[in-house]
């Protein structure tokens, strides 16, 4: 359950007992500290086709954990939504299938609320290398202040000279509450 400032439950005055309501909120606050809002999702088993020179938001149909109803498996599965305002650690790992030429630039972004101006963050970028039997994994993370209701998504792009689509799997996408914003 949610954290609440204890003085909003009961203003402690000398001579007054501490109420059961106050004690219950202490317990809920302790639970919040040991188990803060955290969500991790993935697209394992569902690689997505990423067309050449196109930004693609990755879906995440599977949940590893979600203790604050931050992710839906039935609607807008690409989103992790902050139900509690604060500063979050947000990161993603993706894995590209073998790429059939060298030096294909790959991008991994985190975007907030659809990724408009000021809301798109490049967290990883590298040139792919063509090696038989090798995929290309990339990871990145950042911290962001999210208001209640703000959502984040993982987005990728690749630019290859063959103009072909490349499959990309979202191995993990997470948001973990760090502090009050």
């Amino acid at each position, binding site marked *: *359950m*949610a954290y*609440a400032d204890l003085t*909003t*439950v*009961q203003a402690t005055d000398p001579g*007054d*007992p501490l*109420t*059961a*309501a*106050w004690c*219950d*909120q202490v317990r*809920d606050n302790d639970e919040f500290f040991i188990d803060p809002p955290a969500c991790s999702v993935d697209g394992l088993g569902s690689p997505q086709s990423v067309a050449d020179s196109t930004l693609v938001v990755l879906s995440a149909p599977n949940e590893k954990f*979600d203790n*604050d*109803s931050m*992710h*839906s*498996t*039935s*609607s*807008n599965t690409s*989103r992790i*939504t902050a*139900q509690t305002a604060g500063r979050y650690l947000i990161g993603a790992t993706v894995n590209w299938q073998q790429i059939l030429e060298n030096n294909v630039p790959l991008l991994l972004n985190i975007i907030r609320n659809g990724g408009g101006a000021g809301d798109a963050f490049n967290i990883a970028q590298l040139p792919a290398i063509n090696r038989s039997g090798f995929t290309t994994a990339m990871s990145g993370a950042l911290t962001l202040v999210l208001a*209640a*209701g703000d959502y984040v998504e993982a987005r990728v792009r690749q630019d290859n000279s063959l103009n072909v689509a490349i499959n990309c799997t979202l191995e993990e996408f997470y948001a973990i509450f760090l502090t009050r914003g």
Partner: protein
Amino acid sequence: MDDLDALGAQYREAKAAIATHRQRQATKELALARLRRRLPEDHPDVSAARAAVVKAHADVRWCQGATIAAGEAYKGVTLDQVPHDRNVVPDPIDVIARMGAR
């Protein structure tokens, strides 16, 4: 605002309502404690204050159940699935069951 946003807002409102109802419960508990200092346990005012505390506590528990139900609705779980999917917090689940998981 799409459906998911609306469900998220509902979940956040339910969570916030827990603290509001806890504040009301604390007020009722303090009133009962003050009455007990000057009146016997069987005094009608004390009995009424005790009943108000019990009601206020039940309201908090109801909000906790509603929060779980709203959170599960956000995640795409229907209300009648909730009592079956979770068996670790019996009281709120009982409340959810009474709310409409028929």
